[in-house]
């Protein structure tokens, strides 16, 4: 399941695919051949791809199933949007502002990833999955009751209601509980998204091809054996999980700066989102970063492409998902595919 060839040229094919896809999309945009609906999907596509790459590092290379990556996205989104809203007037250059916001969002997600990983990585298997799910839900829940504002006397923080802040007349709400953050500058774009994906891919490819990456994979394959040859299991597990969370956080930054209103709903930062990202990772191939990006793009576009079927589209999406899993993984289907392949080969040789 984890056998992956790590040939160098394979990596460049991935970059090339991303760049070609970018050029094609830009060309379509310039010639005006893209519907506004598709244009609106470009940044979300990058967000999901980025998050899927991050989760794949955790699932594919660390070998731990995390169902809480939407929580890290949430942290990245809210911390960076908070910064951007507050500094909107102080820093007018949107690129500089976005880069600082990106650093802040990623750093916060990494910090939380690290803090959560310390207790969580003591568990394994399904228990680890359910605890990461729990952490993700806690993050979403706490963000929903967070009220932060400032006035001439300074900052006010509350976790009960807007009134409890006691803001003065001239005060400004930044995070308004369930209403979230409004007025985030629209700093992210498709170009930035593609650049982030390429940076993330470079990071994960270099990591997995390094001494550190091999240490992480050895823990995944056999923790006891890895420990016995002197690999610091805890350190490498923490490292991989933190980087994975940081990438998810950067996806959150991209997500937040694409919307003027940021709220933590079950739909965007709940466990459903974590599961959706996991679906991208598994369908794209566990441990295969290129597959993650492609699966994220196809599965995000699929409901939109099926829009003509109106009400039935999500039903068909579900059926396609089940059918793809059965086709890819069922032992009977695998045997059938091999038979088919052998048949094709035979006819090819005869002809």
């Amino acid at each position, binding site marked *: 399941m984890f056998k992956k060839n790590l040939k160098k040229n394979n990596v460049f094919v991935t970059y090339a695919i991303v760049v070609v896809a970018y050029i094609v999309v830009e060309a379509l945009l310039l010639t005006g051949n893209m519907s506004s609906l598709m244009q609106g999907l470009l940044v979300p596509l990058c967000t999901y791809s980025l998050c899927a790459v991050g989760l794949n590092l955790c699932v594919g290379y660390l070998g731990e199933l995390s169902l809480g990556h939407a929580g890290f996205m949430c942290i990245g989104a809210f911390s960076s949007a908070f910064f951007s809203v507050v500094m909107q007037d102080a820093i007018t250059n949107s690129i500089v502002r976005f880069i600082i916001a990106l650093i802040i969002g990623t750093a916060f997600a990494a910090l939380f990833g690290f803090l959560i990983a310390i207790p969580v990585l003591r568990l394994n298997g399904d228990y680890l999955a*359910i605890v990461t799910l729990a952490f993700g*839900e*806690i993050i979403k829940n706490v963000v929903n009751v967070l009220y932060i504002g400032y006035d001439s006397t300074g900052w006010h923080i509350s976790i009960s209601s807007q009134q409890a802040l006691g803001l003065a007349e001239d005060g400004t709400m930044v995070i308004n509980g369930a209403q979230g953050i409004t007025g985030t500058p629209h700093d992210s774009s498709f170009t930035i998204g593609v650049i982030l994906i390429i940076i993330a891919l470079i990071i994960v490819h270099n990591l997995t091809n390094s001494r550190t990456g091999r240490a992480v994979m050895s823990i995944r394959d056999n923790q006891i054996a890895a420990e016995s040859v002197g690999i610091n299991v805890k350190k490498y597990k923490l490292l991989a999980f933190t980087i994975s969370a940081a990438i998810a956080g950067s996806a959150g930054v991209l997500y937040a700066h694409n919307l003027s209103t940021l709220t933590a709903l079950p739909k965007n930062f709940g466990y459903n989102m974590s599961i959706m990202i996991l679906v991208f990772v598994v369908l794209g191939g566990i441990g295969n970063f290129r597959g993650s990006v492609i699966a994220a793009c196809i599965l995000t576009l699929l409901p939109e492409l099926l829009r003509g079927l109106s009400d039935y589209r999500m*039903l068909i999406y579900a059926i396609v998902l089940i059918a793809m899993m059965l086709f890819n993984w*069922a032992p009977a289907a695998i045997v059938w595919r091999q038979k088919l392949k052998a048949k094709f080969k035979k006819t090819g040789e005869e002809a």
Partner: protein
Amino acid sequence: MSFVLYLINGISLGSVYAIIALGYTMVYGIAKMLNFAHGDVIMIGSYVSFITFSQMGVNPIVSVVMSMVVCTLLGVVIERVAYKPLRKATSPLAVLITAIGVSYFLQNAALLIFGANPVSFTSVVTLSPLKLAGGDLVISGTTIVTIVLCLIIMGCLMIFIKKTKAGQAMLAVSEDKDAAQLMGINVNATIALTFAIGSGLAAIAGVLLCSAYPTLTPYTGSMPGIKAFTAAVFGGIGSIPGALIGGILLGVIEILGRAYISSQLSDAIVFAVLIVVLLVKPSGILGKPMREKV
């Protein structure tokens, strides 16, 4: 007095979680898979009961039985179509993702059939509320029925597993599938039976849940489903008494947390307690400790 009332409501909600958790824990014990679609089976069961009881005016008990039949069939069909082909798949994640697909399928099918608007469920329990302590403490009929039913189900299930051949076969399959097969146990039939029981119980849980919290939408099942799974893990997954203890503790914590700490943070409190328990006892309250072999 209000504390006692909260406690009883918590036990009642916890009983519902416990019944749902049974479905998770039995399926997990036997098929080693997390059946994400279980919560949506609950929702389907509730809709069946809603249509037969609230709209067609069928006798409440008949309505519950009908919803159980539908859910049992549904559970067996899901197992046969979506999970069985993947039982020997190399990655455990494959069947998990398929279960997620089934969950999406059920939600969206319900959305098409029943519509997105929430419907108001009328309680199937017609028992009058019990007044205790001179009228200070009013316990609704639904609450009493939920708790009693939960205990009856637990009792029956324990007897079923301990005393019947089919129950023993379930235990054997959950211990070791191959050895069970060699002893002449029909493994496929046993797994199908587990899904049937779990889904039938899900129907009861759905009706009880909607009797207490009467809004029903196609998404009603997913959050209680996740919480019940949490309860199953809390009590030690694979253990039936564990599901009861985990479910009731979770319900009580949720209701007390909502009443005394913060209504908005009740879910966060539930999950925080789960994390603490798992960190202290990684296999849950009644779970078997996992041994690591070299």
